[in-house]
């Protein structure tokens, strides 16, 4: 497994985040990622932690549940149990565009190079991918330069560019 973050391949050892199972204690001095269930149950205790906190959502979890708390998280990981399960795309856009999440938004699970560009547009900036796909990242993004729809990446849409051009003439 490799981690691609902000367009750079990060070695496994350099990923400072530790994922914590529900049965394990949350370490005090390490950036830790808990499940949504853990967050629900131990919210007040977790809020008192000093080290960075992250949360991981399953694709069926309702992202609205953490809408008011996004500023507390340094990382939110969204699961793709299968690349065909597209719910996390909506969750990502809501986190970025509606709830104002500014931290690391990480795609985990069945994350393939052919979906990089879509994920990036929806606001993901980190990807846990198989090693073979890690170097394809920049290539995948370079493949696409024009977009029809507005999304979390705030690109101008083709429509807007056309009208700007007309206005400039």
């Amino acid at each position, binding site marked *: 497994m490799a981690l691609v973050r902000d367009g750079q391949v990060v070695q496994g050892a350099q990923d400072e985040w530790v994922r914590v199972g529900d049965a394990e204690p949350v370490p005090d001095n390490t950036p830790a990622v808990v499940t949504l269930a853990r967050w629900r149950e131990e919210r007040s205790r977790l809020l008192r932690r000093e080290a960075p906190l992250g949360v991981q959502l399953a694709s069926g979890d309702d992202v609205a549940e953490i809408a008011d708390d996004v500023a507390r998280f340094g990382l939110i990981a969204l699961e793709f149990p299968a690349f*065909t399960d597209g*719910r996390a*795309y909506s969750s990502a856009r809501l986190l970025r565009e509606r709830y104002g999440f500014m931290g690391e938004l990480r795609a985990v699970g069945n994350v*393939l190079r*052919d979906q990089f560009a*879509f994920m990036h547009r929806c606001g993901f900036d980190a990807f846990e991918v198989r090693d073979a796909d890690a170097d394809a990242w920049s290539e995948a993004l370079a493949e696409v330069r*024009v977009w029809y729809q507005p999304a979390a990446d705030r690109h101008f849409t*083709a429509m807007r560019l056309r009208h700007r051009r007309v206005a400039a003439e």
Partner: protein
Amino acid sequence: MYIYDEMDQAIVDQRVKQFRGQVARRLNGELTEEEFRPLRLMNGLYLQLHAYMLRVAVPYGVLSSTQMRKLAHIARRYDKGYGHFTTRQNIQFNWPKLEDTPDILAELSDVQMHAIQTSGNCIRNVTADQYAGVAADEIEDPRIYSEIIRQWSTLHPEFSFLPRKFKFAVTGAPHDRAALRVHDVGLRLYENEAGEIGFEVMVGGGQGRTPMLAKTIRPFLARRDLLSYVEAIMRVYNRFGRRDNKYKARIKILVHEIGAEEFTRLVEEEWEHLRGGELDLPLAEVQRMRRFFRPPGYEDLDDPVTWYELKKAENVNFSRWAAANVAAHKQPGYAIANISLKPIGGVPGDATAEQMDAVADLADRYSVGEIRVTHEQNLVLPHLKKADLFDLWRALEAIDLATPNVGFVTDIIACPGLDYCALATARSIPVAQRLSERFADIERQRDIGPLRIKISGCINACGHHHVGHIGILGLEKRGEESYQVTLGGRADENAAIGKIVGPAFTADGIVDAVETVIDTYLDLREEGEEFIDTLERTGHDPFKERLYGAR
């Protein structure tokens, strides 16, 4: 019609390049078939019973003569010399080789065509009234909004992995020629009491194993809100649509299970966040788009047209064709002609490369180079002078495209069925062919009048059997093909799902059964009644009795 600018072209070109890379990775073994599957499906490439099948998008059914010639070329060079026009106004090639498909897509991009989102769990080709822009009863041109939706939906980053496929249809006339109520989203343009033009928004229609008619969730949507509202619908569906069971994953099931009221509430709530934002559709964009669909320079002509009336009076074959295949045009002295792709005994929707080339030439000569594909698997020439119709008809006769049966019993919709399709449980095409031969006599067809027969080779209902006046569903029972008959479906503004009439028929018996249904209608009909009118007046009982005997 819509003409790509460099941005549209860049999107299609990058897609071709990307797919070329994906095919190369598949061919060198880097990708397994399992991993390749969703990628090829995003580009319209299916693996069928015998070969790959490539489905090419014809956005809202509009084709230029140049594009038609390219389709003919592809049929000749990469396929077996023919193509198949589909119920989504698209065209399918049944025999391409995997390694040729990137070249085919590159050839398509040369004429501003593509196969993006013609399959997969994404927003599919937007369909529209095939008479858009020329129909005598039109209020607003649906192509403008269909193209806007096409662009918004193309490579949408959020909605490319939906629970299931998703289909839009748009009309701008009171008569529904696009089957709005059996679409995931149907958009009907109309003018409200305040004189504003907007959409009635219908959601949750569909066929398949659980046929449902779409519910109106918003009686009037202003045009500027089109994209923000459909984005809200899509987001609610993407988040809450079922993903646990492929057969319960369409939006119709979500609407049904939570109820139209709750679904509407969710959409409206989502829309409150989106409306007026970046998705707002400026009037300038509608105006820009409208310029692409401006009517060609029509001449001021007298109507009726003497020459046309005279030719009809003196040539009975021409008169029959004109009666069945020619439709009213909004411009005096002009007409719309349907080209039937249902020759007697033929495969519904198939056209040879030679026929495609010939239709392209005729479009250039008589119809400003424009052609339409209908969801009923026929072609349309939309801008014809009535004075040219006789010459056009003679030219169509010469290429076996003048069958005068549009809307009649032999104008059958059929899916590819077990002859091609890996999902099929029975053959469809041979049933269509035998029915066509049984009712070949054109005088008999004219006597029977308008009647829609639609045939599906499995429960997925690609042949739209649920909305056929007579629907036929091919099933497999103990290793034998059998055919279930539904009656009373319709896909127009009075849409209805047909009801199963009784036990299924054998492959041998199905044609007789349909004939019995039609004979029953002929015996029962009252003055001026079409098949569907008689059926709706009498109910199914007299038909059941004739089919199965009194019980």
